[in-house]
């Protein structure tokens, strides 16, 4: 490692380190990258689960997860459930659905999903 790399290492913040990690993790798959995704068109995208939100509203609960592959992020909403086995922080899923814009965020409702290793 050259001096320059060491200098670079010291200067990059955690966010960049994480982005690099994610990008290299998803290089192996042949999905649409989240950054290139188009709304209102059916896509297959994948990402790592970054955060989860449970809406325990009386009647219809919902779980919202945010996934990212380093190029962008998407909010996936599974309505009617509080939790889904196998979906947890740090896990990877591939989803198959139609994204749409909801305010500032891109959302996909109740997609088909596959847990990735």
């Amino acid at each position, binding site marked *: 490692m050259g001096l320059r790399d060491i200098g670079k290492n010291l200067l990059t913040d*955690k*966010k960049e380190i*994480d982005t690099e*990690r994610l990008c290299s993790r998803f290089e192996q798959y042949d999905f649409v990258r989240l950054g290139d995704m188009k709304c209102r068109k059916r896509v297959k995208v994948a990402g790592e689960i*970054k*955060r*989860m*939100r*449970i*809406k*325990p*509203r*009386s009647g219809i609960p919902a779980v919202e997860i945010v996934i990212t592959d380093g190029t962008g992020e998407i909010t996936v909403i599974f309505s009617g459930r*509080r*939790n889904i086995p196998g979906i*947890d*922080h*740090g*896990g990877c899923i591939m989803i198959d659905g139609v994204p749409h814009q909801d*305010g*500032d965020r891109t959302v996909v409702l109740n997609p088909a999903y596959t847990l990735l290793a």
Partner: protein
Amino acid sequence: MALSASALKRFFIGKPIASSEDQHHRLSKKIALPVFASDAISSTAYATEEILIVFLSLAAVGLSAFDNLVPISILVIALLIIVVSSYRQTIYAYPKGGGSYIVARENLGKHPSLVAGASMLVDYILTVAVSVSAGVAAIISAFSNLAPYRVMLCIGFIVIVTLANLRGIKESGALFAPPTYLYILSLASLIIVGLYKVYFKDLGPIDHSGEVAKELLSGQKSLTIFFFLKAFSSGAVALTGIEAVADGVPAFEKPEAKNASKTLMWMAVVLGTSFLGLSILAEKLQPLKDHEGNIKVTVLAQMAEQVYGGRNIFFFITQFATFGILILAANTAYADFPRLSSIIAQDNFLPRQLANRGDRLVFSNGILFLGAAASGLVFAFGGLVNALIPLYAVGVFTGFTLSQFGMLVRHRKLKEPGWQIRAFFSGVGSLTTLFVAGIVVVVKFADGAWIPAVIIPSMMVIFLTINRHYVRVRSFLQIEEGYIAPRQIHLVVVLVGSVNRGVLQAVKYAESLRPDRLLALSVVGSPEARAKLDADWAKHNLTVELEMVTDQFRDITDSIMTRINELDDEASDDIITVIIPEFVTSLRSQWLHNQSALSIKARLLYRPNTVVTSVPIVIK
């Protein structure tokens, strides 16, 4: 723990006094003289000695030192007359109290007044350091085996005076009158008895033995103008403290100005005659003192011993009276420094805290600062009076100059009947004192006069920087015409670690705020922890949205900050309240709890549009 801390404070400081109990009692002339004049008159205890040190030890002129003592004293007294006659006018012009700072502020504007203010503050600090050092020197002269503890004694007395002032000893006559009058009497007795013995009983010079004394007496150099001026500027410290009467005019009985002016005259008479008397006596008795402190006994003590024929009761009375008035002189600075700093603070040139009155209706912060600064000086200069003297006079004479120049400007502006003659006095006064200040800086620059010459301008820079800040804050907070506070979207974020009683309380509290949006945020470490939190959340029927984030780098504070930034970005006109449930146990065990709440609060403190609320969970 908290109880014992306040008990300790109560023990040292005394019980709090209500604001309504504040009262100003008026002082009669007989009482006002000791109250205001102790500072000025006390300088006779060391002024003669300082002149001698310059002649004997620095200029090494030997016996001819004593021939020059009286001429210098007469010059100093001439200076005294000029300054006093100028201050008489200040008293009549400012019956509400006219310190240098106020006179300069009213007549000369911002910058000169700040110079005056800084000079006087520096000078009050030095008054404490010099007076206490000289007081301790008087004690050491009487009990020479205390000499090794000089610095400790000085700092000890400063601590005592500081504590006494925090308790709020008023400038009460009962306290001030006895030591001051005792000192005046003992000086009068020393001078009269001494001169009587010299002229009628052929009392000769003191016999000196020892290496240092021989060396001092054997000096053969001729006196240069430089050392003459240096000796004069040392003698001029006798004038320190005469501004006190002009500062304190409102404390006099009616008619205030007239009584104050008479008191000022009496003070000048006492100061002038005793200073001249001591110089004449010193000329005859030839006491010795060097500048390194090898001779431990003060000039005053040497003369008292010779005049009274040994260390008898009269000698000890003289020493204790000297000590007493010097401590009182230090004490007057404790009244003046906090008062001036509070005035400057009210004008927004010093931190507002200095304008706060403490439990006992005194300006506690100013008192503490003064005590600390004076102790530092004493420590740095080893408690030696003559090492501190070069620092002393610069501030006083700068203050005199600006005050009198301010009076000159005022006379020219108001043009009251007979203003020309008064303006003339003020003009001569300000020129003379400016000249003296110049002399002090030039001839004593290397000895320490450079310190105030550097400190006073830097204090001005500090004053102006503080003022700029306060002005900026004030203009920012000012309400413009038609300003209405905006309605902001209220997002409340409750930080959750695990579900416990405190968190339930915090969530209830958050709901009671009725925000536009409510969110619970938790940073979870592992999938198991997440599953447990999720299950607990469901179990307690919490209906608040629970957001769980994970951080790859295990930094809770950082994750929370990142998430709050993201939430803030979602809306443009929002205000975020972050609610932190926080354990409060006793001081003993608080540190056992995770300090993350503290670090989050510290990070959020400087975040705009963010309110941080702690919901305390008191563990009994």
